[in-house]
């Protein structure tokens, strides 16, 4: 690997890291503002104009709290838990293509950290590892409530991963590639997958809500039954990591939804532009779509009541999986028909 390529990738990684964390921080602010808006309140408005310094104040507060480990906890696993949660949430951003190539200093720079040919499987893989952060943290706390909610969280995530995977298979069948850039390029010219696969989109979206532990699937952390969920025993920035990881995965899953079903960086009339203008407009399009989904996630959280656990399991296993399987079968038949297998 050449030095220039190495520097290019390093810069890209640092920028992506900073942007993801910044967006996650401000997502907490917007969550509170959106909640205030829905409940006819003002929301945070003390720190800075319109309260825009609120995330910094929250972060500072978490850093200055006492960082302690409960006596009966497994010390190293207790520390490892939030780290894994944050790591897996951040890693998934690395395969998402943010825009077309940017030309800087005579170099063609791909706005994607790693264009691996198994891109979408990489995301699914890290999603399934994300369970460990919650399970290890919940178990190592040595607290019944934490363990209960860790078990709830992991069974929920495993159940919804199946339907989610089947929806991903449908998209892969439409494109014929596992690489995310190929999936985006195949949706060029308003051929967005959502128009061809509305059912897969709806199922994927519901599963994304469950995977990120957001309402109406926020049973792992329902404060009315489980005190605080798997992070009951956590304090200081370790708890901050868990809460933060949730917002990072909120942002990333919105980005994945826009990539898989809403054409990623494609936008109507993109053929009129080229070069760097196209790349920057692509980034704008991608982030607009992502932010719309972040808003919808918040909208749902402050509108819908929480599911009961048996309802959650029924929805996952008895509705979403059969629906997505039938969808898979129909897609397969249509593709086979188009390829002329029945002639």
């Amino acid at each position, binding site marked *: 690997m050449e030095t220039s390529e190495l520097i290019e990738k390093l810069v890209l990684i640092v920028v992506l890291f900073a942007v993801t964390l910044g967006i996650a921080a401000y997502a907490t602010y917007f969550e509170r503002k959106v909640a205030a808006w829905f409940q006819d309140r003002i929301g945070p408005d003390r720190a800075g104009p319109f309260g825009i310094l609120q995330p910094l104040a929250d972060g500072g507060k978490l850093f200055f709290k006492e960082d302690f480990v409960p006596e009966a906890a497994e010390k190293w696993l207790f520390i490892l838990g939030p780290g894994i949660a944050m790591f897996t949430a951040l890693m998934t951003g690395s395969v998402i293509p943010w825009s077309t190539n940017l030309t800087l200093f005579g170099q063609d720079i791909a706005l994607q950290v790693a264009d691996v040919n*198994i891109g979408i*499987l990489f995301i699914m893989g890290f999603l*399934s*590892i994300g*369970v460990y952060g919650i*399970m290890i943290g919940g*178990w190592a706390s040595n607290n019944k409530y934490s363990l209960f909610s860790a*078990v709830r969280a992991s069974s929920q995530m*495993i159940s919804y991963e199946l339907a989610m995977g089947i929806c991903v298979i449908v998209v892969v069948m439409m494109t014929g590639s*596992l690489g995310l850039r190929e999936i985006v390029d195949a949706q060029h010219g308003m051929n967005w997958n959502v128009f061809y696969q509305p059912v897969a989109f709806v199922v994927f979206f519901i599963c994304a809500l469950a995977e990120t532990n957001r309402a109406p699937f926020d049973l792992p952390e329902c404060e009315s039954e489980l005190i605080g969920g798997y992070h009951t025993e956590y304090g200081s920035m370790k708890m901050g990591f868990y809460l933060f990881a949730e917002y990072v995965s909120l942002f990333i899953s919105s980005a994945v939804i826009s990539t898989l079903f809403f054409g990623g960086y494609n936008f109507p009339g993109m053929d009129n532009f080229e070069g760097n203008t196209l790349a920057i407009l692509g980034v704008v399009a991608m982030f607009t779509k992502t932010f719309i989904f972040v808003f919808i996630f918040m909208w749902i959280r402050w509108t819908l009541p929480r599911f009961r656990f048996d309802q959650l399991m029924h929805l996952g296993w008895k509705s979403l999986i059969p629906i997505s399987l039938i969808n898979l079968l129909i897609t397969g038949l249509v593709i086979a028909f188009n390829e002329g297998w029945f002639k």
Partner: protein
Amino acid sequence: MSLELVATILGGLTIGSALMVVISKHPVRSVLFLVLTFFLISSNYILMNAQFLAIVNIIVYAGAIMVLFLFVLMLLNLSKDNEPKSPFYIKIAAVTAGGVLLTVLIAALKDGITVGATSTVDGSSEGLVQNLGHLLFTKYVLPFEISSVLFIAAMVGAVLLAKREKQLID
């Protein structure tokens, strides 16, 4: 090339964490080391340019099966106090059986062909998902289909067991 060095370090780490699975006193720690072992095996696959195999290994083993292991162990909450004491002769038998297995494996593999640490990293499309899929659905289609029938049999069996349990409760 430094690739050989990477392969050696990865191999050492893999064996080390596999040993820790056996040595660890606490079952939950053993499972976590097993997860780490699967990760390291996956990175060995990536060195051999088998990306698909690597990620499937992570999704299936580390992401699904090991979570269920962890699930059961955490709910049982095993500790040293309530661990069943196994008699001495069982320990002897276990050590003998393990040693015999090790001998057989070494005897079987010592004449095996040593392939380089990495087949080729650049230019080769060996092990990529297209080629793998193509081989699975042409040359190896029969074993592939037979193993999928096997999986369905296991699934039907699991559903049947779960159903019978429920009837008994009623």
